[in-house]
């Protein structure tokens, strides 16, 4: 048993805050989203399109599996040396005229960034690649301080103008189709002409006009980052539209918010990720724009450059050896595009900045499974494994889901204490619960299923199920926790006898079985219809036959 000696500071992993929590448990949120057929159709169309593109360009690379292994290995190395790499990164950014800020959580990051913007005197900022800033709900904080932020990524702009939330990592407006987007533009961009069509080209042109004005008039930009290189202090943003490059080069002040896990050791490591990312993400061989900058270059680009290194729960994730590989994520969104649960429920059902399979493991880890709201997320998967197959850095998402479910079960019964819970607001903290129906079911099943004798005995009760099922041999209603099944499906009536109980009296009847099947030797039968078959009076060689 470990004890904290008197006078020692209690070091505990601090959990994340911001837009990381579900407001409603996943099953309920998903149920509501399932009713939105337009959204589902939009998502289905988009994910299937990207999925196909990804598969094609991945197939082109004979060394794709080696690349995945390399990506995974680099990330493991990063996690093992994160503190040193971050310090190296800080030293190099500073040496080249940039300033590094360390933010423990969302509140701290928001305070730092808002302060930096205020210092410039500007009340407008433009943003690009802003996932980390969404995580910390930066826009709300800026707005509360009289600063207006404009998203410049087309899809993020659509979400922002529509007063909506992003629902996909790569395509935040995936749930909207072009007609819906046209309506949003007409309503929210007053300069737009009524004649605007829903053609992608027209829509892009309208957005371009709207944004150009912002690019030329705004002196502060806030960006995210795809990678930060420790050995040089270089930051990287990859994108498709070029709007990011405008943000990164035109303003005088550039503030980049980067999760601490985005670091890579060397410039060479980018080789691996710049192959893995675009192919997994947009299904392209290379993304159209890759911007890199290292501190300040006098007379060229922003002259005031800041990096905010964001923890917000990441150290807590790192402290769990079984779950930490969630931090390997390069936000390519490939796992979303193949996930059948995401496809049906859509991104909003996950309730946080991070939707889909990665969200189901990352959000509850960042906030701590002790957060009541996120406890339903690890269950939002059928464990089909498609996400693991597709992940460019080989994150074993199904295994982490199972690990988190175990943590959740133990947390519910007070068997697992989570130090970070003390740092979480009281309303989100969970108190141990009395055994649920599910617990009792699992306990009982464990007792029965851990003994062949008890199984045999329990199966003697199968005919009871037949009584429940009645004449049509289907059970259509069950009580309690298993009731969800029969809301949607029937359950077959159980057989009269289990295999094990039947076998006890028939194991030795091999010869009768062979004779009945008449299958000794090859059967050179023509492919004809069953009407031609001569029914034979097979011996009673089958359990549960109803005769």
């Amino acid at each position, binding site marked *: 048993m470990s004890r904290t000696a008197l006078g020692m500071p209690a070091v505990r992993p601090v959990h994340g805050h911001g837009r990381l929590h579900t407001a409603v448990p996943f*099953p309920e949120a998903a149920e509501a989203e*399932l009713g939105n057929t337009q959204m589902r159709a939009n998502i289905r169309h988009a994910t299937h399109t990207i999925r196909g593109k990804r598969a094609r360009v991945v197939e082109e690379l004979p060394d794709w599996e080696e690349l995945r292994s390399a990506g995974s290995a680099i990330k493991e190395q990063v996690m093992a040396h994160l503190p040193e790499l971050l310090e190296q990164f800080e030293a190099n950014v500073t040496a080249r005229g940039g300033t590094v800020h360390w933010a423990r959580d969302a509140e701290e990051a928001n305070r730092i960034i808002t302060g930096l913007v205020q210092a410039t005197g500007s009340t407008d900022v433009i943003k690009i690649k802003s996932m980390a800033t969404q995580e910390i709900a930066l826009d709300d904080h800026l707005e509360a301080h009289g600063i207006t932020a404009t998203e410049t990524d087309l899809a993020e702009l659509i979400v922002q103008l529509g007063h909506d939330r992003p629902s996909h990592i790569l395509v935040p407006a995936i749930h909207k189709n072009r007609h819906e987007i046209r309506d949003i533009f007409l309503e929210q961009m007053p300069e737009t002409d009524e004649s605007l069509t829903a053609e992608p080209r027209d829509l892009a042109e309208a957005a371009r006009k709207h944004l150009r004005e912002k690019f030329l008039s705004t002196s502060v930009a806030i960006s995210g980052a795809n990678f930060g290189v420790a050995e040089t202090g270089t930051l990287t943003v990859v994108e498709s539209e070029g709007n990011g490059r405008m943000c990164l080069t035109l303003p005088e002040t550039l503030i980049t918010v980067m999760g601490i896990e985005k670091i890579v050791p060397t410039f060479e490591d980018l080789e691996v990720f710049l192959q893995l990312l675009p192919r997994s993400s947009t299904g392209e061989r290379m993304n159209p724009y890759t911007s890199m900058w290292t501190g300040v270059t006098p007379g060229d680009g922003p002259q005031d450059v800041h990096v905010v290194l964001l923890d917000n729960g990441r150290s807590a994730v790192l402290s769990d050896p079984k779950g930490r590989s969630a931090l390997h994520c390069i936000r390519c969104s490939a796992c979303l595009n193949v996930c*059948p*649960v995401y496809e*049906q*429920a859509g991104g909003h059902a996950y309730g946080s900045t991070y939707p889909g399979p990665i969200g189901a493991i990352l959000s509850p880890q960042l906030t701590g499974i002790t957060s009541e709201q996120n406890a339903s997320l690890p*269950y939002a*998967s*059928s*464990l*089909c494994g*498609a996400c693991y197959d597709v992940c460019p850095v080989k994150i074993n998402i199904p*295994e982490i889901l*199972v690990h988190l*479910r*175990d*943590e959740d*079960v133990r947390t519910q019964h007070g068997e697992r204490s989570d130090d970070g819970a003390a740092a979480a607001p009281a309303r989100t903290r969970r108190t141990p619960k009395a055994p649920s129906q*599910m617990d009792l079911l*699992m306990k009982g099943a*464990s*007792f*029965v*299923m*851990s003994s*062949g004798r*008890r*199984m045999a005995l329990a199966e003697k009760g199968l005919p009871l199920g037949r009584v429940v099922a009645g*004449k049509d041999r*289907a059970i*259509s209603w069950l009580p309690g926790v*298993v009731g969800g*099944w029969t*809301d*949607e*499906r*029937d359950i*077959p009536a159980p*057989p009269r006898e*289990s*295999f*094990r109980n039947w*076998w006890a009296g028939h*194991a030795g009847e091999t010869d009768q*079985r*062979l004779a*009945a*099947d*008449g*299958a*000794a030797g*090859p*059967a*050179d039968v023509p492919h004809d*219809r*069953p009407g031609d*078959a001569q*029914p034979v009076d097979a011996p009673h060689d089958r*359990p*549960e036959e109803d005769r």
Partner: protein
Amino acid sequence: MRIALFATCIVDAMYPRVALATVRVLERLGHEVVFPPGQGCCSQMHVNSGYLADALPVVRNHVKAFTAADYDVAVAPSGSCVASLGHQQPMVARAGGDEELAAAAEAVAGNTYELSQLLTDVLGVTDAAAQLGSWFPHTVTYHPSCHGMRLLRLGDRQKDLVASVAGVELVELPDAEECCGFGGTFSFKNPDVSAAMAEEKIGNIEATGAELCTGGDASCLMHLGGAMARRGTGVGTVHFAEILASTRRNPLEVSGPVELSIPRRPARPSSSVPTQTAGGPR
């Protein structure tokens, strides 16, 4: 060879005919089948629901039952249960701090095959009609279950075996590799999403025009069969072991593995399937 049958809990209790079909096929090849009586369950239900502590006695029991038994290889007619032996049991043992059990679990898993794996990789069956005398004159489509496909990498083993059965007309299932939405307790923890996934799968199955959908996991088939029955779809489900076991002399009457896979209200009254063959609730 002496082959130990791991019937798996769901097949044992709900689909005994699938276990029997497995026995019949193996006996036809001249092997002796034994049933280690101590067997219970692979622990997948507990693990996937997060009850790792409750999974431990189940794992311990399985390892004990199959270590004690005398056999050359073990077989199970379920991809997900075999995957669970290899992927989950050692993990559960380690989580419980029992390294010895983990090693024993790995040894048992290393000698346990999914049925199509055993038939193709070990017993050299490539042509079910010729080598097993299998005969099943129906149009079927094939759904590969996730764990067989992704954890065991079964590839086309099951499908190819089915295709080699005399009389079978195999039609391709669109988006076959997508999950059917079962997922164990997922199907009642997230019933709406699970049902939406099943709906998608059923739509694809119907589009093939097949009489039956086959696969290698009784649980997925139970879920799909149950949803199809509720919907009044005219398509049934059947485990591929039963298709292999069916012969001209003793043809499978298509009524199970899922009894209710038979349409309760035939959706397509003009179906060409003779009713005594397609079965009906008896």
